[in-house]
């Protein structure tokens, strides 16, 4: 099934490239402002070290060297996942309803993965450590270290996504070239190097296979595999350990990813008058997916809570009791419950559906999933099997430096979309072509 895009022409598709408004400048200013605030705080971290974050060592935050930075890293990787999975599903499963938002979703993957990488980069202290420490150790440590598995698979995932985008954009750029700005001709020439129309069928088959690789690797082996293994393989942390973390991480990732796509798609729809290009039906469909993923998220939380408090090993029971007595945890769960109820209610009563309300719900879900992930990381460390750090003073509270990094990365994603939307079409030509062919 596809959505009705009757009346949408190619000029509508390139509208973001052709227009320049005060609202665009305002969004640019906000994005640069957020990045500026983060860079101000980050310069303090570079000058004084990680001590300004309370994450420097075991002694500065109640024995918690991983906090908001790692929570935000998982969160951004999760958001990244849904994007490309949605796009891959359009290709593999014929879910044409979502074709108008497929490229926005691919772009969200690239932007979000970049932000995830930034959190690793800033958390290692000196940024050059990724090259001076990680690279030399990689050949031997990849055999044993989940951290090295993580670096390897995140790199592969980023490269696959960018290749997917680079191959699919050739078709669009070639056909829309007369509507694209001449000053960017060298870039377009590079993007379409060696292009002939005879390659379309071959490239379509190639990207089908990329979609195939991604839809297996990303959900099952990355966010349901390597990322949770960073935690679940550590038996010394009761709250982290166990195979349930794979599906649990994946459910959180998909829930946040659908929320991210809803927000980005709604922003473009509103900013460029794309009511016909991204119809209401797309958001109604995304709302149902949000409801379904929220349900799975909540079900897996229930699994962990029940197994953690009913005749669990002592330390797991303690960790779970701490978790369910933390008010913030229930705020996070409540935000996801709200999303689920809204999605199901509007499925039953479509007249209740409102895109602005869905965007608000989605923002709430993103706040909830970030909160849950940070609590997971911090409380997992605070309630380990061993009592070595019980006497460590202090209590972990995210510092302004860390909070500014979350805001800064949000600014980077906004800036990324503002820039990319001026360079390439952010909706695939395929989304309107079926209609064009019928008209012809």
């Amino acid at each position, binding site marked *: 099934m596809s959505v009705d895009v009757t009346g949408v022409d190619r000029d509508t598709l390139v509208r973001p490239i052709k227009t320049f408004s005060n609202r665009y400048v305002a969004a640019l200013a906000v994005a640069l402002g957020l990045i500026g605030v983060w860079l101000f705080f980050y310069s303090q971290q570079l000058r004084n070290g990680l001590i300004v974050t309370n994450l420097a060592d075991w002694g500065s935050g109640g024995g918690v060297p991983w906090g908001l930075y790692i929570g935000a890293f998982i969160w951004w990787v999760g958001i990244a996942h849904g994007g490309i999975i949605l796009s891959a599903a359009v290709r593999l499963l014929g879910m044409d309803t979502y074709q108008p938002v497929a490229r926005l979703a691919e772009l969200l993957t690239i932007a979000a993965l970049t932000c995830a990488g930034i959190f690793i980069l800033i958390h290692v202290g*000196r*940024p*050059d450590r*990724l*090259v*001076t420490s990680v*690279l030399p150790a990689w050949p031997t440590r*990849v*055999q*044993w*270290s*989940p951290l*090295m*598995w993580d670096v*390897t*698979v995140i*790199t*592969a995932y*980023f*490269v*696959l996504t*960018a*290749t997917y985008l*680079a*191959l699919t954009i050739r078709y669009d750029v070639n056909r829309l070239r007369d509507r694209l700005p001449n000053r960017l001709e060298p870039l377009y020439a590079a993007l379409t*190097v*060696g292009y002939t129309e005879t*390659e379309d*069928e*071959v*490239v379509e*088959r*190639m990207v089908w*296979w*990329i979609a*195939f*690789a*991604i839809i*297996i*690797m990303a959900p099952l*082996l*990355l966010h349901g*595999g*390597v990322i949770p293994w960073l935690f679940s393989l550590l038996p010394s942390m009761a709250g982290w350990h166990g195979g349930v973390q794979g599906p649990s991480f994946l459910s959180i990732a998909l829930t946040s990813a659908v929320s991210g796509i809803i927000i980005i798609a709604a922003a473009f729809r509103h900013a460029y008058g794309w009511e016909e290009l991204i119809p209401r039906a797309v958001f109604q469909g995304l709302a149902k997916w949000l409801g379904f993923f929220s349900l799975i998220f909540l079900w897996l939380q229930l699994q962990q809570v029940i197994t953690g408090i009913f005749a669990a090993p002592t330390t797991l029971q303690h960790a779970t009791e701490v978790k369910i007595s933390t008010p913030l945890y229930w705020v996070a769960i409540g935000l996801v419950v709200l999303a689920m109820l809204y999605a199901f209610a509007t499925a039953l009563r479509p007249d209740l559906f409102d895109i602005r309300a869905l965007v608000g719900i989605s923002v709430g879900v993103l706040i909830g999933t970030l909160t849950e992930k940070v609590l997971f990381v911090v409380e997992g460390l605070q309630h380990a099997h061993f009592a070595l750090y019980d006497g460590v003073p202090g209590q972990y509270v995210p510092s302004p430096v860390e909070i500014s990094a979350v805001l800064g990365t949000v600014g980077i994603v906004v800036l990324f979309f503002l820039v990319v939307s001026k360079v390439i079409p952010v909706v695939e030509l395929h989304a309107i072509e079926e209609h064009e062919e019928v008209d012809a």
Partner: protein
Amino acid sequence: MTALVPLTGLLAAVAASVAGLAPAPTAAVPGAVPLSAEYTLPFVGPGTYLIFGIVLAPVYAMVAAWFIGDPSDRFAGLLGVGYLAGLTTVLWGSLFVATIIIGTVFF
């Protein structure tokens, strides 16, 4: 009762080794069942099998399909491989350049 001897021997050996009293359970308790040997993989550590054998397997299938099957095209296949290799190089190469600059400017 005889059937329980191996079990009680094993329990005693485990309890003793947990307490740090007996380094070798089979030697300390006559008739004890030996603990199974630690599971190990040959040649390299488990991560190599896990990452390059399982996690990246879909990528191998993808690249193979680019060149095998119909329709396929040598130029398009090489372009795809070029993107994979080029983007990986750009990603880590730019970090390497940044590292050189940091080393030169600050240290």
